[in-house]
């Protein structure tokens, strides 16, 4: 008998979750506890030695978080996942498994401003050196490869410029260089793009955004594709060499194709400490149950708003990959045929002042520094999320001074458009 394969919406509701053994509770309980009792000393030793499946302490793992982890791993087509306190924490934990001081990683310039800051400043202080490439020019990735390169980092749909990255082309560079490709899939979610299907080895999320989807909880996820051979050479000793913390266990030898996720948990999360609250995990899980419905509506609304803005006389340009004629439209059709996401930018003929005026005139849109909420959101990146970059870097990141970024919510699209209409007239 061949197994029938459940679809995406079924996985979004069921993967990882099962009625609670003790109470029969159908919704995933919030296991709001720091610690879990051991059966006996031998059981405790087995758990601490990574020899048995089970829970020890919520900084290392928690049953509510585990449901979230398995669900996102299932939706992304990965072998395992790890939930952490934020998207930024996911980046620190994932890269700490790969880089030693003096090492390099290549990143596309087209990134969320917070990631650009983290890579440029915080990571620099760890001795992890980012080398920038241009997401629109694959040859710049090839040129950036050096013997010290340990990973390549891109966003699938890039924030805020609305660009779509040619994941398969970058993956080819990564494979040739013998390093893993890390894809931040926050803006697309696996509903729109599954980067592992296109060659990603590690997928990261700020689950705060569309996965959670309701603007109420911060969380991050690391997904292990199970595709990278960490033991091919001695580049990744955290995975291939005996770990003194665990009596000389070699993680890849012991855990096979989910060794990276385990390493992130038992070395990264355990020692760096950015554990996710089980309550937040519950909120993100609840959001994910409606992910396919929400993402489709986000995309449909965003497309309608982008089309309407394109025809508005006050608007200079709309950067939405879902529009015909956009430079990323072909890539969007290939990688995200269901829709090009709900975050995009546009520029106004009136420049910086018109942008500031628009933001202050809007009544339905919330002016804040988040994306992927049920509510429509607006921000002026040049003065906020990307304010720490110089003007050239802002423009390269798609956040020039005349740019306004929106995250289109789930309200009636006519109400969203009416709010923009009155604000542009004002």
């Amino acid at each position: 008998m061949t197994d029938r394969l459940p679809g995406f919406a079924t996985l979004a509701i069921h993967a990882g979750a099962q009625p609670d053994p003790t109470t029969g509770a159908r919704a995933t309980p919030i296991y709001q506890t720091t610690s879990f009792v051991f059966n006996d000393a031998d059981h405790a030793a087995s758990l601490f030695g990574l020899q048995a499946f089970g829970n020890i302490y919520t900084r290392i793992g928690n049953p509510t978080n585990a449901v979230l982890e398995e669900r996102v791993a299932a939706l992304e087509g990965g072998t395992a996942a790890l939930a952490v306190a934020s998207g930024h924490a996911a980046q620190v934990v994932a890269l700490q498994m790969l880089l030693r001081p003096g090492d390099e990683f290549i990143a596309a310039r087209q990134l969320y401003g917070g990631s650009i800051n983290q890579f440029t400043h915080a990571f620099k202080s760890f001795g992890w050196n980012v080398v920038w490439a241009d997401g629109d020019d694959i040859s710049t990735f090839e040129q950036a490869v050096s013997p010290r390169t340990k990973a390549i980092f891109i966003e699938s749909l890039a924030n805020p410029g609305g660009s779509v990255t040619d994941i398969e082309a970058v993956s080819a560079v990564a494979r040739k260089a013998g390093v893993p490709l890390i894809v931040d899939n926050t803006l697309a979610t696996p509903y729109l793009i599954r980067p592992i299907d296109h060659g990603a080895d590690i997928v990261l999320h700020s689950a705060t955004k569309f996965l959670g989807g309701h603007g109420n909880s911060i969380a991050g996820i690391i997904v292990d594709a199970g595709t990278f051979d960490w033991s091919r050479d001695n580049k990744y000793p955290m995975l291939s060499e005996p770990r003194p913390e665990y009596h000389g266990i070699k993680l890849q030898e012991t855990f096979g194709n989910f060794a990276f996720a385990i390493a992130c948990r038992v070395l990264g999360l355990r020692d760096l400490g950015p554990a996710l609250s089980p309550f937040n995990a519950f909120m993100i899980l609840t959001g994910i149950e409606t992910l396919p419905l929400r993402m489709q509506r986000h995309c449909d609304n965003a497309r309608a708003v982008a089309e309407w803005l394109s025809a508005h006389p006050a608007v200079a340009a709309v950067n939405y990959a879902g529009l015909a004629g956009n430079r990323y439209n072909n890539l969007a059709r290939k990688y995200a045929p269901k829709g090009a996401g709900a975050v995009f930018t546009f520029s106004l003929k009136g420049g910086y002042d018109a942008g500031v005026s628009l933001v202050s005139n809007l009544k339905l849109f919330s002016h804040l520094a988040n994306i992927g909420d049920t509510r429509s959101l607006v921000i002026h990146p040049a003065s906020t999320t990307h304010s720490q970059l110089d003007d050239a870097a802002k423009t390269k990141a798609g956040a020039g001074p005349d740019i306004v970024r929106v995250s289109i919510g789930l309200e009636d699209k006519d109400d969203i458009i009416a709010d923009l209409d009155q604000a542009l007239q004002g």
Partner: protein
Amino acid sequence: MNHDTYDDDYIRGILNGVKTIAMVGASPVNVRPSYFAFKYLAQRGYDMIPVNPGQVGKSLVGKPFVASLRDIDRPVDMVDIFRNADAALALVEEALSLTPLPKVIWMQLGVRNDKAAAMAEAAGLKVVMNRCPKIEYGRLSSEISWMGVNSRTLSAKRAPIPTQGMRLSLNRVSVGGGGTGAADRAAQDKKDSA
């Protein structure tokens, strides 16, 4: 048969069907993967036999070591090879000399020997390579989900309270055959680089 990926039903059939497992290369050192895979399978109710000529006279979680497969005093359903790939051929030859024949040859995670597999299959045995029975049992029962691992199975039935020594149901709904697309790619990469 294709040994890059396995259908869940194939693995499930093996783990539901076998009772006696001889683990060749079982280590008495309690931090080695063979030790804790052995211990886990014993706790889940399998009749485990540790095979290691250097350890005869000692025992592993209460089970006495034997020197070779031929020294086992009862029929063996499955031979789990916890040795390097080069040792697999001779071990399969030895397994095929047993009466009655074992039903399954299982080579551990990281161990693959296609010639040994072909020989076992020609004799009517089932073969699994480059997998760990502890991980597969944990995956199909979803016990491994505590580690954030994708079990690739679903169930809307109330989960059992996992207690020591309990056998778990492996009969959940499978989500995706024997592996993800990712597993296929990793296997292809290994072939390409070999």
